[in-house]
């Protein structure tokens, strides 16, 4: 079945992240000067402005920093998912990542709730990292 939702648009900064997702690995840039782990990808560290960077693999564990429940689809491809949860997940390594919480009733989601990454292979090229309540 054709996948009708928006897909990632890759550029030189974001490609390593989405390549990692294809391997079901959550990878983030870590500043080798100050240690800050950042998202979204960028050529310099937003805290210390160093361009010295390595990619690290994140554990995939985090907690819900904030979340909302969509009751209206602003893109027709999301209509069938209503009501669905968009959340900012605070990963163990630090970055805040905007994603979906799946695998539970929207009413069961709360701030600070522990969550784990779950992979959704949406096309041959892309896997999306979503999160579900931690087991």
């Amino acid at each position: 079945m054709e996948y009708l939702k928006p897909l990632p648009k890759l550029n030189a900064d974001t490609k390593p992240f989405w390549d990692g997702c294809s391997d079901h690995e959550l990878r983030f840039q870590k500043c080798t000067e100050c240690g800050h782990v950042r998202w979204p990808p960028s050529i310099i560290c937003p805290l210390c402005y160093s361009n010295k960077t390595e990619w690290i693999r994140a554990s995939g564990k985090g907690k819900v920093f904030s979340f909302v429940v969509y009751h209206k689809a602003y893109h027709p491809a999301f209509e069938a998912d209503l009501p669905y949860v968009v959340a900012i997940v605070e990963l163990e390594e630090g970055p805040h990542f905007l994603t979906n919480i799946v695998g539970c009733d929207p009413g069961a989601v709360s701030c600070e709730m522990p969550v784990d990454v779950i992979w959704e292979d949406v096309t041959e090229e892309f896997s999306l990292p979503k999160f579900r309540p931690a087991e």
Partner: protein
Amino acid sequence: MERAGNEAIFGHSGATAGYALAARRAMHTFHTGPETWKHIAVGQRKWANLNPSAMMHGRTMSFEDYYGSDWLVEPFRLFDNCLITDGGRACVVTTVERARDLRHPPAVIMGLGQHNPSYDIQQALHMAGPTGAKIAGQTAFEMSGITLDDVDACEIYDCFTYTVEITLQDYGFFKPGEGEDWFRDGRIEPGGSMPVNTSGGQLSEAYFMGLTPLTEAVMQIMGRCGKRQLGPETNTKRPEIILCNDNGGILQTHSCYILRRL
């Protein structure tokens, strides 16, 4: 969207959802939510009902109407959202010297302040405050040489109900989580002790971005507001000083300014 790279992919779009994320974090961080926001939506609607130019002039709103409005992006209902408006506003700026000779009494700028936390919502740590309002407000009050006690009314950028709460909270009108008590009993409504968004604001008059609060403050100081005029007409104080602001992005930019009668 491409900058952060993952918003549209996960079905995230628009200002309503961005501010709803901020509002949800505030619900977790301090006691707030629809019980507080209903006072803002309903209070501003009462001002709009006195304003023939307001899009919602002829439509009243009760607490039941507020709770009965549809969820858009929870925790926001339709009535937590501002309007969408086609139209225009203008304001003439000149020197005090020239303004003294004009037909209408002018509003004078006492002080200004800006503060821009800038981080987008995904990375923001300020969504439950302090937002840019805190430092922008302190700067404007310092320049004006006044305190909150000198303020007679507020015209606050109100893209959503929560925006009004966090802005007034960061200015220091009440402590985090005390908004519900502060807004209760019609404090911001006609006849209230601290009128807020006296045209109906962007929630109930019209969405002209920063010009909605600006033009209303100027018109109130000029005394040109008809039935909604602050003063004996609305059982409020004739305003000497009005506190105003503008806000942009998802609580990313903030300008505070204070106007007074000449």
